[in-house]
């Protein structure tokens, strides 16, 4: 049986305490004594991403800070805008009537994450912080030993995807993120000193190793979505199987209607690079239109242009690039008024 490496588990009761514990246990410090360099302390929420990674020895933290017992870590509140606590399970997000109605893309995205069991365990905060994925990286210690490791776990080694790449090319793979981007989400962090709010669109960067502009000593606490009046949204995902699989191309689109005219729009993609991307060039042409086919084709073309899949997931580059185009068209067409 594949087992977890040994660790010390701490179970804080509040985010503040969790942030305090992060700082105390050397947040961000690398432990070089455990084979490949690994973070000394890590946060875990549902564990559905981190535990498999730990079993494969991609991470072997000495200290694990579980957020499972944090008070009020889960819940969905509405007062004009929508506030989702980071510890809310994906099942709860997917089945929430208000989200299904007003923030459809998010409900749809949450509903197609992995499997029912994983959604019962995994949280939306965890999905936002999902580690980037790569089929040269998401492998066991044995496999990676045979491989000779890769840049993501050993800086002295090349990226196996493109051996001359100066950057790790692991892939952003969280379903909910493009949906949240399309819905204009912002996220809240807490550290030992206080709290801050960041637009989600500023959180990610084109770096497979450190994909998030998030400090190691802060904790993601909440997600805020603006008012949904007039907005329609949807999420479409390419994967090999209709369950279990991470996206290998995905598009979220949201448009605000005023009568028969689009007054605002956002299109976001993921699994087509190391960073989920809010594609401004796809959204811009939509505004002021009725989502006619010509306009949609322009948007799809813009998405196609920024989609830069590499050969490190299931499927192929051309298949995924094409799916980005086709799904953008289909997503936008589905947002036309009935």
């Amino acid at each position, binding site marked *: 049986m*594949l087992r*977890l490496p040994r660790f*010390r*588990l701490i179970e804080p009761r509040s985010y503040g305490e969790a942030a305090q514990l992060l700082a105390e246990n050397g947040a961000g410090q690398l432990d070089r004594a455990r084979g490949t360099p690994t973070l000394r302390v890590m946060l875990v929420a549902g564990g559905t991403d981190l*535990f498999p990674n730990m*079993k494969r020895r991609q991470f072997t933290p000495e200290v694990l800070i*579980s957020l499972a017992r944090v008070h009020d870590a889960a819940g969905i509140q509405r007062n004009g805008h929508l506030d989702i606590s980071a510890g809310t399970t994906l099942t709860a997000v997917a089945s929430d009537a208000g989200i299904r109605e007003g923030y459809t893309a998010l409900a749809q995205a949450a509903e197609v994450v992995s499997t029912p*069991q*994983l959604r019962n365990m995994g949280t939306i905060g965890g999905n936002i912080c999902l580690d980037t994925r790569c089929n040269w990286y998401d492998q066991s210690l044995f496999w990676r030993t045979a491989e000779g490791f890769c840049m993501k776990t050993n800086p002295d080694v090349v990226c196996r995807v493109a051996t001359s790449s100066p950057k790790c090319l692991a892939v952003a793979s969280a379903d909910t993120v493009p949906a949240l981007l399309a819905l204009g989400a912002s996220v809240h962090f807490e550290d030992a000193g206080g709290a801050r709010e960041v637009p989600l669109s500023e959180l990610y960067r084109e770096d497979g190793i450190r994909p998030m502009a998030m400090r190691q000593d802060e904790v993601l606490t909440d997600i805020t979505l603006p008012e949904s009046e007039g907005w329609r949204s949807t999420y479409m995902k390419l994967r090999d199987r209709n369950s279990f699989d991470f996206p290998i191309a995905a598009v979220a689109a949201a448009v605000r209607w005023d009568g028969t005219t689009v007054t605002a729009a956002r299109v976001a993609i993921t699994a087509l690079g190391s960073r989920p991307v809010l594609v401004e060039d796809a959204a811009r042409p939509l505004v002021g239109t009725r989502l006619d086919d010509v306009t949609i084709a322009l948007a799809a073309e813009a998405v196609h242009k920024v989609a830069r899949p590499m050969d490190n997931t299931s499927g192929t580059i051309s298949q995924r690039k094409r799916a980005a185009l086709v799904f953008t068209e289909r997503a936008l067409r589905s947002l036309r008024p009935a």
Partner: protein
Amino acid sequence: MSKQLITLHVNGEPRTIAADPHHTLLEVLREELGLTGTKHGCELGECGACTVLVDGIPVLACLTLPALVGEGEVTTVEGLATGESLHPLQIAFAEEGAAQCGYCTPGMLMTAKALLDATARPTRDEIAHAISGNLCRCTGYTAIYEAIEKAAARS
């Protein structure tokens, strides 16, 4: 790191055991509590064989830390029957031949129980979605659908 005392509530019984903190609920159920009915096919959350219920919700024992289950009520396949009476799902699975090798079956049964507890008369589509996290390599799922429908019709 030394073992820690943990009290779990499993199939209606409080069980206190000493376990390594890094051992998952799957390991504790099978190795400390002798509840080997819960199977494992990958230990990475990629097959669903180790599905158990925690407070009635299907979760994967291979990715669950016992310490975090707390007061939660854990139900495994051994807790499905009540005394002498098998659960309707167990009878229907036998009648329909829904267990071939039987290895995915405990996890499948737990998922199906949670489904029927929440939805008395699920449609074929609802069943297919509910069990989409439980891989079966033998049946092609058809007999499993029929068994779940049969159990639903009887309860």
